[in-house]
């Protein structure tokens, strides 16, 4: 089994937001919820970089640790998924998540924020693979179809990579060696407690 990870090569990201749109379209994500977004750092200044960020599917995920109803689980591919049947919408996972991945359909009321929604690595949820109920709750299960996440597949500059951590780390390492610079594997130290040494 592979250890699935995301890697955004910020030196290639052109902030086209195709990953954001692809994700929304693939999963019929409701209004107001963004499972993935592109954050631009140092906008308009020298050294500006854009990073596409979603759930990083952490090792020892903080969301799963703080969840009061234990609704999270990790698949054999190390993808972090959750059960919307169990979720009570308390919001703890958002405070714990280093990447702001958990989203809630309602905001700013008496704590009834609705069931949490987040990136599933295009791997659905606990329901049976590719069923209507799974699609309605979590979106398409591309991993069960043998496909990689839509965001990375759509990336026009191949900045966003998804797949086995070893493989995408090697691709990134070769890129950095060839072009002579790299702004880092964003989020890897926080998510996986490792960095890509070049």
């Amino acid at each position, binding site marked *: 089994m592979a250890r699935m990870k995301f890697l955004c090569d*910020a*030196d290639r990201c052109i902030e086209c937001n195709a990953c*954001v749109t692809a994700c929304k379209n693939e999963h019929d994500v409701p209004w*107001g919820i*963004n499972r993935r*977004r*592109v*954050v*631009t*750092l*140092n*906008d308009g200044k*020298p*050294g*500006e*970089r*854009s*990073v596409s*960020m979603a759930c990083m599917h952490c090792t020892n995920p*903080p969301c799963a*640790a*703080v*969840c*009061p*109803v*234990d*609704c999270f689980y990790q698949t054999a591919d190390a993808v972090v998924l959750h059960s919307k*049947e*169990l*979720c*009570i*919408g*308390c*919001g*703890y996972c*958002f*405070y*714990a*998540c*280093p*990447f*702001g991945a958990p*989203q809630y359909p309602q*905001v*700013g009321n*008496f*704590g*009834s*924020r609705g069931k949490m929604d987040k990136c599933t690595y295009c791997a659905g949820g606990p329901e049976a693979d590719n069923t209507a109920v799974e699609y309605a709750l979590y979106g398409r299960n591309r991993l069960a179809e043998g496909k990689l996440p839509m965001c990375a597949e759509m990336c026009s500059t191949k900045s966003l990579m998804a797949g086995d951590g070893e493989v995408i780390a090697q691709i990134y390492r070769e890129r950095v060696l060839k*072009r*002579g*610079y790299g*702004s*880092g*594997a*964003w*989020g890897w*130290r*926080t998510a996986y407690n490792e*960095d890509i040494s070049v």
Partner: protein
Amino acid sequence: MIAQPITARLLCSALAALTLAVLLVFATPLSAQTSGGQPKSPSGSNPTASSVNEQKLLQELDRLSGRVTVPNPQLAMLEQPQGRSYQSFHERWLPWIGGIAVLGMIAILLVFYLWRGRIRPTPEERSGRAVVRFSAFERLNHWMMATCFIVLAVTGLNYVYGKRLLMPLIGAEAFADWSQWAKFAHNFIAWPFMLALLLMFILWVKDNIPDRYDAAWLRAGGGLFGGRQPPAERFNAGQKLLFWSVIIGGVLLSVSGVIMLFPFALVDLQGMQIAQYVHAITAVVLTAVILAHIYIGSLGMEGAIGAMTTGTVDQAWAYHHHPAWVERQRRGQVQGPTIGPGEVPAS
């Protein structure tokens, strides 16, 4: 004649410099083309390579934020490694702090009960006549707060200990259903709790200002560890400590709780985390304090519960423990039912 060699030397130097310059002019684009490197700016730096670097940014900043084109402003936060600190507080520290506070207090109360037993009034503290200690409104407000506090404490402890203690017993789905209702109860019962807190402050603050009896009462340990209970006004120093614990703790819980009820309306992500730290620690400490209050008000002291049920206590008991209050009542300086002159037995 001396000038000639100098001129020749200067000419030679100038020629050499010119040759070098020409060589450099041709050599620079040549090397750039062959090495396959990045185009260089006039300053010689590579603007593409000089970008923000994640590890350097994280050394300087706690959180990385930028600009997003999606409407949710919370998503402008790219990375907050302190989420791991929140995780460590929530899962490593809080269960221990809460466990030590709550179980520790229960253990202390158990030891106290086994050692001291039930504190009973002495024969001279029994007159058989009742005196009103708390008005109906005071009692109603007390029980509103008590009911709210118990609901809030149980549903609050469920956030931390439910998955550890209850979930293995009833299963994940039943536990999730219960927790959903517990969350609603926690969020809505918070409002009558805050109302009761406000009313309690208004009703009792005037009787809880420190006075001349408090130091002696505290020095004697309130008579809890043997000896007579020192005299007091309407409330003794122990009751005052409880009152101020409830008021200060209640305000901390209310402020941090309202912040959590309206996520990001008042504070940012770090503020939300701090609100949880304050809320959780205050809650477990206050729960321990209230456990002691429940004990001494019911099992620990015979006759004490009457003050909050029927609202009356024995006149002689009141005179022994709260002589200044009884005197004040007798002089008619307090509102409500009073004790007539001569009704208080001589001690």
